[in-house]
């Protein structure tokens, strides 16, 4: 962000007070405009970077960003107090859009501005704010329905690569993402990691793995002494604390009696003395035991991991909370797997012998919960669990020319992944703002039959606002949008502007899509937030409000 002056801006955050209209709307609008102006250049496929000066290491290069949500998040306060209220109001909406959908913040911003500006003009002319809000929200429902009608599903590496390209505008990354998501699907597990070279490297891992390694490297049995590999292994699934060797005796006796040769033991703790028993050579020759820690720190996460492991391997979870001990473990309590591996950091299971029907029902249940979950962190945890249970995962290592570019690419890869998951789950609509333009026809009958001025104004505002993302994309390409819009409309439904080739094209044939979840999220956030902002009458300022690091 370019500073207009070298002097430090004066802040007026010391005095508490109450502010009424028209200062409220005026001040907030300036705040909105500042944020939208900051983000608007990033809408569309052509790279428009916003440079943000670093706060701490000022001698370093500024951060170069093209993501509206991230740009908004970097600004934690602006000097004018009323403008700051507007800025932070919109910042929060944009950041939530980014967290939820991974994309669409610039669309949200320009739509919001269009609705708020036009709505404010109507209210200044004597309109009823609550009436306008009600009709705007009705219009929002119509737009959502129309977007769902336009939705199609995307399959295949080529189409998914096209979708990825519209999100990340990075050819190499799009190619990788297209292949990865064609393989792992909407719910598959993808880890984005920092790479060592300059390129992107992807790797696929069969089976499920958890980030918990061996208690002792002496348990490894491969030629390098780094990894333990078990075949046709039995699995004890627990979060028990194993303090003494005596606790293990009943389990080991039962296992040996039932001719179990290899055992994976998952527990909360394992004392050195207990480990010594397992590592003793005579015991190891009778039964080879590999012990790892239960995944997760909190009880909830541990319980989830035990549930998944039990279903996956056909065993039973022995939990501290239910008073389970190792004294009465039965053969049927142990899970089974074709192969188990464990190293210093991870353990994995390939070919768990749980009932395939139960595994699918369990995954279906988790997917249902994921669809209904509101909390982002819980959503991430559910996605991770589903990904594990699907039987494989992908890792994308991000390389680059500098630590800054690697960080930026990692951020971009994560956002792209979120958006692609949404697109694969819920489908796609034609990109480039075309889907929103096509929604106008669903509003025309309501405009025509409007019963009062609030309703008339609401539909007029929405009809104009729905053109704004398209116009902005064309403007950002350096073209006057009016003639392009007329050309696209003349050619018929589905035609839009490809800002890269600078041609009006059939968007679907050109492979230019937007995830419907992103577009719906953007429209919802923009219209609902603008409608709420239009009904804000009074602002109460407190002394020294905190800077908003997080929304």
């Amino acid at each position, binding site marked *: 962000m370019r500073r207009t002056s070298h002097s430090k801006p004066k802040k007026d955050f010391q005095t508490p007070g109450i502010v009424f209209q028209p200062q409220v709307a005026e001040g907030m609008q300036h705040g909105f405009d500042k944020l939208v102006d900051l983000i608007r250049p990033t809408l569309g496929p052509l790279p428009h970077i916003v440079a943000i000066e670093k706060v701490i290491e000022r001698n370093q290069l500024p951060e170069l960003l093209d993501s509206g949500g991230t740009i908004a998040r970097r600004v934690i306060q602006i000097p004018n107090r009323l403008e700051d209220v507007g800025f932070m109001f919109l910042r929060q909406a944009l950041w939530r859009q980014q967290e939820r959908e991974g994309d669409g913040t610039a669309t949200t911003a320009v739509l919001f501005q269009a609705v708020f500006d036009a709505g404010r003009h109507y209210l200044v002319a004597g309109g009823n704010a609550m009436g306008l809000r009600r009709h705007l929200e009705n219009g929002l429902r119509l737009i959502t329905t129309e977007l769902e009608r336009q939705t199609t599903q995307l399959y295949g590496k080529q189409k998914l690569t096209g979708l990825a390209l519209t999100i990340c505008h990075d050819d190499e990354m799009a190619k990788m993402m297209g292949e990865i998501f064609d393989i792992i699907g909407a719910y598959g597990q993808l880890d984005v990691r920092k790479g060592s070279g300059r390129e992107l490297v992807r790797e696929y891992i069969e089976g499920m793995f958890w980030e918990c390694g061996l208690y002792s490297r002496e348990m490894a049995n491969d030629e390098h002494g780094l990894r333990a590999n078990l075949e046709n292994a039995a699995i004890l699934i627990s979060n028990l604390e194993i303090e003494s060797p005596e606790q293990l005796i009943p389990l080991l006796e039962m296992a040996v009696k039932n001719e179990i040769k290899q055992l994976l033991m998952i527990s909360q703790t394992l004392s050195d003395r207990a480990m010594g028993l397992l590592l003793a050579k005579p015991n190891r020759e009778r039964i080879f035991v590999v012990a790892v820690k239960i995944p997760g720190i909190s009880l909830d996460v541990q319980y989830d991991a035990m549930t998944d492991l039990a279903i996956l391997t056909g065993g039973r979870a022995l939990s501290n909370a239910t008073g389970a001990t190792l004294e009465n473990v039965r053969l049927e309590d142990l899970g089974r797997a074709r192969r188990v591996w464990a190293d210093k950091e991870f353990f994995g299971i390939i070919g768990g*012998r749980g009932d*395939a029907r139960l595994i699918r029902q369990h995954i279906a249940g988790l997917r249902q919960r994921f669809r209904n979950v509101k909390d982002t962190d819980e959503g991430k945890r559910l996605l991770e669990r589903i990904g594990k249970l699907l*039987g494989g995962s992908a890792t994308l290592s991000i390389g680059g020319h500098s630590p800054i570019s690697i960080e930026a690419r990692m951020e971009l890869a994560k956002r792209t992944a979120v958006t692609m998951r949404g697109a694969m789950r819920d489908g796609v609509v034609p990109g480039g703002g075309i889907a929103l333009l096509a929604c106008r026809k669903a509003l025309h009958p309501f405009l025509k039959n409007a019963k009062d001025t609030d309703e008339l104004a609401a539909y007029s505002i929405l009809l104009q606002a729905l053109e704004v993302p398209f116009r902005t994309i064309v403007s950002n390409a350096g073209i006057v949008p009016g003639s392009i819009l007329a050309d696209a409309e003349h050619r018929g439904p589905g035609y839009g502007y490809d800002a890269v080739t600078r041609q009006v094209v059939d968007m679907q044939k050109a492979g230019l899509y937007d995830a419907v979840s992103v577009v719906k999220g953007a429209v919802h956030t923009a219209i609902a937030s603008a409608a709420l902002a239009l009904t804000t009458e009074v602002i109460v300022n407190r002394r020294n409000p905190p800077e908003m690091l997080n929304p």
Partner: protein
Amino acid sequence: MTNKLDSDDELLNEEETNALIYAFAAAPGFQIGRAGRAFASHKGGLKRTEDGGQSWQDALADFALSEQLPVTSLVISPVFDHDGLVFAGAPGGILRSSLGGKSWKAVLFPPPSPLVSALAISPNFASDETVFAGTMEDGVFISKDAGEKWASWNFGLLDLNVLALAISPNYIFDETLFAGTETGLFRSTNGGRAWREVELPFGFDAVISLAISPNYTEDHCIYIGSEDLGLWESADEGEHWIQLAKNQLSDPVNAILVSRNELLAVNAVGLWHSADGGTSWINCLPKEYTGFEISAVLAPQGIGFGATLLAGFTNGSIKPVMIAGKKVYRQTIKKRD
């Protein structure tokens, strides 16, 4: 071991222990009762014929096995005349022959080695050298070097007990194949790199046989034979299903063959033929064979009226059967001089 197949019923009645015929594969130009090479895998090994099925020899004689080796699946290279490649699935891995089945090499899968229960070969094998192996417990393995090396690809395959595989005739473009498992059907549209479950109207029954229409690109038809719920058809790549031959095919459907508008389905009591896309069905199994269960069929001349099939029975015998109209004929093979 040499079996002579002629018109006698004795062989049919003579039950061999562990002799169930699992699968057939024939070289191009194979003519039943006349000439050509074919293989029959069975519970006790692998048979080979060089004379159109008139006589059968033990194809694994060179191995000098101490005990019988069940051979559960078979495929032959589409360009067999050129490369002489045959693949047979067995417990622990693949038997591979590059000499037209005269000698074999065992390719073991990673331990604990699974039973190879199904094989499918790319229609474009001459250039992509791709073969798929379905296994019990370890899912699907793929080889991209004509069966020398194998790797498992099981993303999304939530049941690793594979009973049947079918590959799209247009695989080179659509990379589509299906896997029937103990609890349902899975589809891959990226050459077996990842799988998605195909929802079936009957829940989680085992899918033991599969067939894809030779015209799949246009008609999108696939057929599945379930263990307990008969034969099903989907004309939209698995989105919607209808049951076929509800009255005739309620038993496990052991094999399905499809041509343009004709279908052949094999179950315990018959060899069911439909010449109208599954609307009406006739049992082609001659009355003399009533009471004997067919486990596999080979149709080198197709499945139209008048074509002759080789039928493999659960007791290990192999018999020619002609697809007739209303009247069912049993063919007699005369061994040529």
